[in-house]
Each structure stands twice: as structure tokens, then as C-alpha cells.
């Protein structure tokens, strides 16, 4: 069992099932279905869009998604803790604005700027936690309100226009070319593996995940459930601010208006990710697969000449599809688990 728990990385070992031979394991449609759809999508685009199958496409697809993946991880951490965090994209955008503004207008050194932004994000997460967990306002409402408020306040402070001029060292570091991919992408993988590791293998992480799944059972087992719920909102804010810092490093600027474009793909990625690797559970490996799947879809459509509106259609469709799939998975589990001898 303990080895099987590492199913997210060692993907050929099915969880709590008799071990099949590796080939049969890989053919497990329920767990790897999305990966096959993804491969089909790549094959399809390669056939119809001559320019699709190229190294540069892969670099774009791989490299451009660092911030989106971190934002999605933030959403997943909140969902695992049993909370909805709708403020992630705004926290990211405001963090980006704050980095640029503090670093240019206020001439803070970049290192202190980053630390200050992260600390502010932690405080913001703690505020969300206080309102949701202590006072008892559902987090979906709390974060909708607090995120909007934060964004508005930031625009009042720094203006809503795009701003550039951040310390070149941050840009150089984040986009440092390591084996053909920017450093940012390695950072996301490191963050993903770190989250996976803590959640799966440390007592605190397990307490966190299972409190989110069933708070009552966890409470009776002696877990401080309120603390876990708070942690989920604080961590999601922290991760969102990291995404914002990466965003500044990648683009060299802060663009407050982009925030809204990140929220829907994040939820689509989180739910779609919960249909793979460990169907029925939000999981880190699923996030990576889902986000790459989504961006492949969008990139292909753009190369086919569709732009703008197609993003919304595609992401919206994917979110609905993902939620439908998760419901179907839950249902099939229930009926196969029910009344079976």
C-alpha cells in the first residue's frame, strides 16, 4: 500500500487493485484516459496543422504554462482542504503588480520586494481563513468578495495599466534556459513534487487531505479540522503569489487585466486532473496532465486560425466536461461498491 500511494509518480502501479502486468496497467482507461485523449489530440493536430508538430510548439506549450500550473495547484490545494478559493487569479495579478510597483516606484530591492509580497499574500490567506473558518462564511463567497476587493484596491494604488521595468535579474533568472526550457518550468515541477510529497507522505499532509474529504471523521479521529481548513486557504494564497512572481519574471511586466483569464482554466484543470491518475481525487500529477492537455487544445485551435473567443469556449466546455466526468466516476464507484459481496 505504501508503495501504491506513490502512484502519482510511479504511474504504472494501480492503487488497491491486484497488480497487473505493466502493459495492462497502462491500458487502464479509467486512470489514463485523459493521457490518451491528449495523445490523440496531438496526433490529430499534427495531421491537419503542418506547423503544429515542431520543437517550438512544444517549447511554447511547455514553457508558457508555468504560472497557469501554479495557479491550478493553488486551486487544488484549497479543494483538497475542502475549500473553494476564487481569489487565486486576483492574488496572482496583484502580486505581480506589487512586485513591479514596489521594485520600480518605491525602488525596493527585488529580494525584499518578493519577500514582502509573499508575506502580504500569507496575510491575505489568513484573512480569508478567518472569515471562512472562524466566522463561518462559505469560502466560495469569502474569496469571491475578498479577491475582488483586493484587485480593486491594487488598481487604486498602482493603476490598472500594464507596467514594466522590473529588475532585469528577476527576468533573467526565471527565463534562464536550462536544457531548452525556462527555469520557471522546473520551478513548477519542483513545487508540484513538493506538494505531492507533503500531501502523500507526511502526517500533516494526510491529515490535511482527509480532513478535506470528511471533516467529521477527521475531527473524531482527533484532527484539528479548523486548522486544516485555514491552512488550505493560506497555502492557496501563497501559491498564487508565487505564480504572480513567476509571471513578472516571464513577461517582464505586470498586466492586471490578465487575471480573469487564469481562473477558469485553473478550475477546469483541477477538475479535469481529478479524472486521471487517481480518478475521483484531486491530484498533483493530474493537474500537470490536464493543463498540458488544455493548452494543447487551445494552441492547436489557434494555429488553425481560431482566436480569442475560442479560448473561452474550449475552457468552459472542458470544465463542464470535467465535472460531468467526475460525477460519472463517483457514480460508478458507488454502484460497483454498493451491495457487492
Amino acid at each position, binding site marked *: 500500500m505504501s508503495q501504491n500511494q506513490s502512484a502519482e509518480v510511479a504511474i504504472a502501479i494501480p492503487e488497491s487493485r491486484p497488480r497487473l502486468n505493466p502493459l495492462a496497467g497502462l491500458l487502464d482507461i479509467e486512470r489514463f484516459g485523459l493521457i490518451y485523449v491528449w495523445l490523440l489530440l496531438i496526433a490529430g493536430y499534427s495531421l491537419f496543422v503542418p506547423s503544429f508538430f515542431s520543437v517550438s510548439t512544444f517549447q511554447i506549450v511547455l514553457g508558457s504554462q508555468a504560472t497557469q500550473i501554479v495557479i491550478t495547484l493553488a486551486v487544488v490545494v484549497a479543494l483538497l482542504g475542502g475549500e473553494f478559493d476564487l481569489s487565486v487569479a486576483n492574488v496572482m495579478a496583484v502580486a505581480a503588480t506589487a512586485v513591479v510597483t514596489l521594485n520600480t516606484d518605491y525602488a525596493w530591492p527585488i529580494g525584499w520586494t518578493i519577500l514582502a509580497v509573499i508575506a502580504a499574500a500569507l496575510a491575505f490567506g489568513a484573512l480569508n481563513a478567518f472569515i471562512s473558518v472562524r466566522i463561518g462564511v462559505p469560502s466560495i463567497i469569502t474569496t469571491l468578495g475578498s479577491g475582488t476587493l483586493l484587485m480593486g484596491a491594487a488598481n487604486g494604488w498602482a493603476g490598472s495599466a500594464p507596467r514594466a521595468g522590473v529588475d532585469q535579474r528577476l527576468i533573467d533568472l526565471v527565463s534562464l534556459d536550462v536544457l531548452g526550457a525556462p527555469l520557471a518550468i522546473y520551478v513548477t515541477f519542483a513545487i508540484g513534487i513538493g506538494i505531492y510529497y507533503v500531501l502523500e507522505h507526511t502526517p500533516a499532509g*494526510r491529515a490535511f487531505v482527509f480532513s478535506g474529504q470528511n471533516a467529521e471523521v477527521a475531527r473524531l479521529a482527533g484532527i484539528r479540522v479548523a486548522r486544516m481548513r485555514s491552512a488550505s486557504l493560506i497555502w492557496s494564497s501563497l501559491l498564487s503569489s508565487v505564480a504572480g512572481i513567476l509571471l513578472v519574471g516571464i513577461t517582464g511586466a505586470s498586466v492586471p487585466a490578465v487575471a480573469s483569464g487564469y481562473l477558469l482554466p485553473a478550475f477546469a484543470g483541477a477538475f479535469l486532473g481529478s479524472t486521471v491518475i487517481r480518478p475521483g481525487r484531486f491530484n498533483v500529477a493530474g493537474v500537470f496532465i490536464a493543463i498540458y492537455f488544455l493548452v494543447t487544445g487551445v494552441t492547436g485551435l489557434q494555429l488553425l486560425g481560431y482566436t480569442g473567443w475560442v479560448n473561452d469556449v474550449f475552457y468552459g466546455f472542458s470544465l463542464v466536461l470535467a465535472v460531468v466526468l467526475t460525477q460519472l466516476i463517483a457514480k460508478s464507484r458507488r454502484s*460497483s461498491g454498493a451491495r457487492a459481496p
Partner: protein
Amino acid sequence: MAAALEVRGIVKRYGALVANAGVDLVVERGEIHGIMGENGAGKSTLMNILYGVTQPDAGEIRLGGALVRLRSPLDAIRNGLGMVHQAFRLFDSLSVWENIVFGREPVRGWVVDGRTARAAVAELAERFSLSVNVDARVGDLSVGVRQRVEILKALYREARILILDEPTAVLTPREADALADVMRALVADGRSILFVTHKLREVLDVTDRITVMRHGAVSARLETARTSEQEVVRAMVGRAVSLDIQRPDVATGDVVLEVDHLSVKMEHGHSAVSDAGLTVHAGEIVGIAGVAGNGQSELIEAIAGLRRHAGGTIRLRGTEIGGLSVGARRRLGVAYIPEDRATVGTAGRASASENLILGFQRRREFQRWGHLLHERVLGWAQRLIVRYDVRIRDAQTPVDTLSGGNLQKVVVARELEHQAALIIAEQPTRGVDIGAIEFIHRKLLEERARGRAILLVSAELSEILALSDRILVIYEGRIVANLPSREASEERIGSLLAGGSGDAPPVEAGPLRAPSPAPSLSDAKLRDP
């Protein structure tokens, strides 16, 4: 030396309802202390207070003489208390050892040390002869084994005082006996056990002392060795109760239910019921006896319309109903008291009056131009609450606050009020206290006297024998015997239940296991897609 646990003047109110009205309780080290009381007497409330789940309005708790405040289960655990809840609280998707060590995992460095954890769990299980497969997934386990996991979970947290809230309600007799052995082993080890039950035989068999509760207060403190069944029952119910039922003769009428060659297949294709045939006449109670898991649930669900059948006919007063929806069957005259009162029988969040009117909303008297007349509905609900003696604050209280027996009375009240030609009663008294059992039995017999046809399923052989005019025995999905009740005896049916011929002495009801219950709905919420 100070008592292991001493409770003084515990009070807990829910609005106007006083669940605990100044309860005193003393539990010594190394004793099995029985807590008896009718449904709704306040036993679970007291136990939840002791485990820090609920906070009392007044009163104090001492452990080994020291005053403690238990603000959360975590506080209780730290003070050496452990609790096995009436409904189990485990993660179905986790393995046995993961559930047991959850929240207290041994670590190597930062990481959960699975090997040490499993060894510790296996050692603990060995020590108290609680055999479990530490790697099994909890969702795949039978009820009895899940309970062992709960006990191990408490022991792993070093519980010195173990609270078992109606642990035997869900067990087969053999599992209950095994549990009794475990309890004895635990007190021999110097621990104390609070054993909540309303089964007389058990409490007299295993406890050292008994505290009886009634209407939220202690009505008697008894020493098991020096008390009697009658004394306990009187303290519980406030009067003498007898389950020896007089079954007056009733002339049976026409055939109401006629089932022929019925077969039911499970999702994965194996037969749950094969070629079953039965008839129930007006004014007759037909009992179905069987060890859990032999197809009786599926048979009943097929008749009630909850499950599709694969073949055969189901006729109600001559009309084929096999293809009809549940609603259509109810309109034609089928009432159903389901085994699972909490999820099938009632809507937990909804109030008692809403639950009592379920299925009656269309009645003329309750509506005007399509609007429900709330005053009338409430009045009607109030009358039923009184008539069926449901202990509830008022008709507007959600039923998920009710104890099992009271919830059962809500279901029974609603279904019997249907005036349906056929009443299907599935485990109508399971987990219900003795006073309520007597009451429900009396109601069923009244309905029989009114000429209703009643199909009764029960795991309690004594109940089947006491109520039925005819007894069918179901074994591995087949009806293997059809006896008039005067020809039936406990021995004869016992043998048939286990697949014997009915002549031989009873053989052990070997590997027939109840299927594990459906996973709880809470596992399927959005937070866990």
C-alpha cells in the same frame, strides 16, 4: 483510589428538549459498565459529551479524580478516552492500518513510516485477538470487521476508557459474541468500557454494573449479578413490558400480493434471487427469515420497485406491477418500511412534518388549488407524533437529530397511515428499544386485524416467530421453505437458515456474510469529486 471516570450533574438541552437532565455516572477501572435506556433516553448525548463531541450546558467530568474539560475529541483522546460511534466513522478509501494510525502516524524523518505503522497495528490486533487484514480497504470490509477497526483505532490512541455506542446493533449474533470476548479481554487489561445497548441479554451477559437512563436522567443503578431482566426493563420503560404477543385469529381474505418465478440479478450479473414465489393474503403476516445477504433485501426491493427484476411476475390484487415505478406502486397500495431508515426512509434535513407527509402531498385535504396547507399538514403531523409517541421537540425539527428508534417511528407512522393493501416491513424494529418494539409489533398486528397483507423481513428469528402466520425461509436467493407458524420452531428454522433440511440440528451459519453497506453519501460530495 479515584474512579476511572466520574460524571456529576451533566445537563444538555436542545431548545426545550432536555437530552440530559443532570446525569451522574461512576465507572471504575477494569469494569464493563452497561448504559441502558430507550431510544431517545439521552445515551448517545452523554457519550458524545464524554468524547468531547458535544459540550454540556452544565456538569463536570473527572478522570482518575482530576477535573477535565473536553472541548474536542482531541482533548478526549489526550485524556485517554476512545469512542466507537453508532455509525462508523472511517475513511472507506483508506486501508485498515491507514485508518487506525490516521492523525498519529509514526514517522521516519518527515515521512509516514508505513512499515512501523503496520507492524504496530498488527501487533495490537494480535494482542486483543481482533483479527483484521491490515492492508484491506475499509470500504470493502463487513460491518463487524469495520467495528474492530474502530476499536483498534481507539486502542492505538491509548484509550483507557472505551465508549461503545450500541456496538451490537449492527452485528450478527456470532459477531456480538466475539465482541463480548474482546470487551472482556480489554477490561482484563485494566481498561474500562462504557457499553451502550438496549439488548437485555447482552447487558446481563457481559457487564459488571448497569446505569439505566430514562428521559435524560438516571433511573437506576444496578449490579448485574444482583439484578433481573424485569428490574432492568422496568427502570428503562417505567413499566413492565412483555414481548410475548397474543396473535388473535383473523380470517384471511383474498390474495393481495402474488409473486411468481421472480429473479433478481445484481450489477455484476450474479443472481440475488432466483425463481422466488410467494403469496400474501389480506389479514395475514408472512415472515421472511434468512441470514443477512441471502437475497431478502433484493427480493423486497424488487417488490417495492427500488430494483429492477430480471424475470417473473409481481401482482398486487391481480394487477401486474412489476414494470411500474415506485410511485405508481404506492398509489396502487404498497407501503414500505425500509431497512435503511436514515437514507431511504427519511430525508434527514427535512422536518418531521415534511417527512411524515412524504408521499401524501397530493391528498385532497392537504391542498387547495395546488398549494399545500401548512397548518393542516402540521396539525396532522402533530397528531401522528403523539399517536406514535415520537420523542421530538416539535413537528418542525429536522429528523436528523432523532435517535434511531424515534426515526423508525416516523417511518412506521407514515407508512401505516397509507392505508395500503400491502405493507412491506423490512427490519421494522432493528436498533429500536424494547418499548418501541412492543409498540411497533402491536401496530403491525392492528393492521393485520384491519385486513392488510403484511410482508415482514427480520433478522430476529424471535420476531418472525412471534408475528408471522406463515414463515418463508430464504437461502442463497431461493425460498427453501414455506411453513405455517404453528409448524415452525426456532430449531427447525435455524437449520433451514443455514441451508439444512429443517430436520437436522442447526448447523453453524458459516460463511454467509452480509454484504457491506453502500458507501456513505458523504464520500461523494463535491469536495471529493
